[in-house]
């Protein structure tokens, strides 16, 4: 190991934590107030559209989390700094949960809009596959008992998965145009009104703060875990 994990990192995280938690709560209060009370209901979908304010940010951050996962795996290959492996591991679980949230909220939104809980839309199917990519990464990490080896192996798997995401996306899109009549595409409304834009922006910020808070908590746990592992190895 060329770089050691120090107490300094944990100290920074512990100091940042209260601020993050408070600002997350504040942002969610503002976001929920604007999205549930202040913004107008959609003139086609009515109030059921409001679930978008949770659904859209969580879908964005699910994708962003996989990018961070792959990016930190690449950085881990270049620098061999253990902190990148720890970042990858902590972001993977959060990303999986965000994927799950976006799938479940999308499904709840779909019931009044489409009349069914699930349609085999290209985006939904790709998100489902993304969920399984996350799951494979986490399971692989857990199933290898030698943790040094596990971080090397799962970093490789993260990069393979990242290379595969465009291929999967492309093929699912192709499959969808083949099998699906273009009735669902009205979901992608190109123009969004400013009165809905503001709550969406605040909710995105709130979700991002939530992600950072949970990420820091996970990061601290993983660093401590890593330290315990090292101490055991020395003994």
């Amino acid at each position: 190991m060329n770089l050691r994990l120090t107490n300094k990192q944990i100290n920074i995280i512990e100091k940042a934590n209260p601020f993050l938690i408070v600002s997350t709560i504040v942002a969610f209060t503002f976001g929920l107030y604007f999205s549930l009370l202040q913004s107008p209901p959609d003139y086609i979908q009515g109030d059921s559209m409001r679930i978008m304010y949770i659904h859209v940010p969580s879908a964005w951050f699910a994708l962003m989390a996989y990018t961070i996962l792959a990016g930190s795996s690449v950085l881990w290959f270049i620098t061999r700094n253990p902190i990148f492996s720890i970042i990858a591991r902590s972001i993977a679980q959060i990303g999986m949960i965000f994927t799950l949230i976006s799938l479940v909220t999308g499904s709840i939104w779909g019931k009044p809009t489409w009349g069914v809980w699930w349609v085999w839309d290209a985006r939904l199917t790709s998100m489902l596959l993304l969920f399984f990519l996350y799951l494979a990464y986490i399971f692989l990490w857990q199933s290898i008992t030698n943790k040094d080896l596990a971080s090397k192996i799962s970093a490789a798997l993260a990069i393979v998965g990242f290379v595969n995401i465009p291929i999967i996306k492309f093929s699912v899109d192709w499959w969808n145009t083949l099998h699906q009549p273009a009735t669902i595409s009205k979901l992608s409304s190109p123009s969004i009104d400013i009165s809905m834009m503001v709550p969406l922006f605040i909710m995105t910020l709130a979700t991002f703060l939530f992600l950072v808070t949970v990420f820091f908590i996970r990061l601290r746990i993983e660093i401590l875990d890593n330290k315990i592992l090292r101490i055991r190895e020395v003994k």
Partner: protein
Amino acid sequence: MFALLKRDLYLALYSSSSFFYTSSFFVLILIILPFLFGTNDVQLQILFKGIIWIGLSLSILLTMERIFNADYEDGNLDIILQQNPSIEIVIISKYITHWIVYCLPLFIVLPMLSFLFYVSLDNIFLIFLNLFFGSFGMVFIVTFVSALTLGAKRTIFLKAIIVIPLFIPFLIFGTNLESWPILLALSMMSFVLSMYVSAYGLRLYVE
């Protein structure tokens, strides 16, 4: 390389899986179809195109522990890697063995199956092309996943969770009859990926 190929083929054919076993596996997977969905010939033709891919994926996936795991557990992998000049040659010979033992039987029984499921000979040729080019890519994918998961012991379900999302592009394009060039392209891409990743995985475990 040829010594290794010969050894692996002998091992595969003399032990549990002769050609008859794997080809009977394919035939039995497909024979389930009429029992489940009736004998309507139009329906059977549609189902045949899908189930034949499930048969191929299962036969590649369920046997993926035989690529490296058996050699790794009894220590032969170290000796094989020492004897051969480069790690890539070992990987290529493993591809060839796995393809011959677990994919080739499907192509032998495929013409016969086309009569069972009323598929016309023109269509069966296109299905053959699809399966042929797709099967290479699937073997490449399975090999690198098997090299990566050598340390995770006896976890075929974990491997299935890793492999099946990577198979999905092959399955999507495989059911379309005109898309064999795309399958060929996918196989080539997975060859490049598989070479690097399996060499990386093997080097980690055998040091």
